[in-house]
């Protein structure tokens, strides 16, 4: 090996090391909002709305949680199995599961959310038809499953097989879009707490979903809320269950940091 070749390979190795450390330096470690300043959407609601969420008997979201609990133990599909056939309190418990979502499905390598996991279970283990996104039954089951993680902080994996999804979600978060040419952070990082006419801007965390919103007069998924955000800046909303939204869900889960799940939350 000539001296020139040695020097070239050393430079090559240096570039490689630089590239690797560059990637590491970009890995998610710093959040734009300090932990001490983190606020759930709950903190931006009126006293009456907060009181409604706090009372499990008055909180309208529990209509769906209860329905979801019933569906969870109801047999469905050709295999004549219920969710509870596989998931009990001690075996494959769903307690705390939602806090780990979105998560990469090992079989397909896709990042999926709770709604999509429920439908995959129906398909694979129950041989049942998938429930359509935003249907009453899927909202009910999602609310029930997410409720089993109430009080727990998000703990979704953002590295390994999830990293590319995390980065895609972050890119969507920071991309200007729509006729209004606005990105998520313009409102929810730079201007939270400010008034958008009658509404106080929240930090845009998804820790209460599915959530009962007065503007909907029903419970709705996080994707429904994301579609509303896109429409608000006159961007073309993506379809329910779009991969971009699931990736964004992962980024939102990470940026919510120590905030705990509140499902079913009540929002204006």
């Amino acid at each position, binding site marked *: 090996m000539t001296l020139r070749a040695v020097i070239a390979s050393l430079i090559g190795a240096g570039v490689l090391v630089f590239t690797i450390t560059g990637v590491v330096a970009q890995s998610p470690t710093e959040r734009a909002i300090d932990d001490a300043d983190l606020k759930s959407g709950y903190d931006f609601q009126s006293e009456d709305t907060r009181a409604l969420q706090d009372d499990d008997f008055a909180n309208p979201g529990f209509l769906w949680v209860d329905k979801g609990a019933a569906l969870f133990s109801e047999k469905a599909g050709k295999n004549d199995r219920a969710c509870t056939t596989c998931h009990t309190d001690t075996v494959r418990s769903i307690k705390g599961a939602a806090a780990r979502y979105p998560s990469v499905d090992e079989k397909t390598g896709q990042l999926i959310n709770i709604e999509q996991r429920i439908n995959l279970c129906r398909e694979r283990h129950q041989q049942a038809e998938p429930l359509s996104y935003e249907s009453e039954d899927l909202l009910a089951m999602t609310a029930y499953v997410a409720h089993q993680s109430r009080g727990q902080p998000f703990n979704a994996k953002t590295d390994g097989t999830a990293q590319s999804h995390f980065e895609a979600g972050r890119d969507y978060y920071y*991309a*200007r*879009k*729509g*006729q*209004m*040419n*606005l990105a998520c952070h*313009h*409102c929810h990082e*730079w*201007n939270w707490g*400010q*008034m*958008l*006419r*009658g509404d106080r*801007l929240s930090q845009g965390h998804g820790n209460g979903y599915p959530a009962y919103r007065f503007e909907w007069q029903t419970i709705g998924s996080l994707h429904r809320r994301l579609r509303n955000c*896109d*429409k608000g800046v*006159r*961007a*073309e*909303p993506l379809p329910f269950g779009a991969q971009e939204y699931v990736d964004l869900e992962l980024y939102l889960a990470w940026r919510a940091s120590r905030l705990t799940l509140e499902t079913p939350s009540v929002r204006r």
Partner: protein
Amino acid sequence: MRCLGKGMRLLGRSYWCVAILAGLTAPLEGADLLPYDIVEDSIPNSLTGAAGDAAAGRAAFIDRDRGHCLLCHSVSSIEDPFHGTIGPDLSAIGSSLTAGQLRFRVVDQTRLSADTVMPAYYRVKGLRQVDPPFQGKPILTAQEVEDVVAYLASLKEAPE
């Protein structure tokens, strides 16, 4: 250009070339936006060549489907319980900025400050994922921009 040159030589094809070019550029260009000249931080001349109407501008400023400027800004002379607090208070903006400076800020504030959260109200290029009903259309028409500029210019500090 090469396409056009060929088209001229092969007269029969030139229409196709022009048609294809027009087809490609039309959705990007969108509505016929009027050209304007920027002088420092100002667009000194009216987009339409005529002065706007301040009363119509006030309406467009408030209207949810047009300017909806009150979403982010406050103006003390507008009687509405809800004003935004994201942008600066505009109650006397006509005393600190000229009509030309106001026009530039309404037309495309991003050209003054790339990080701004204020939308460009008279621009159709360089936007992504625009909802189909709004594609190729500016938020405000040239006339509405002029009306809003006339309204903003009229917002002066009250005499002592």
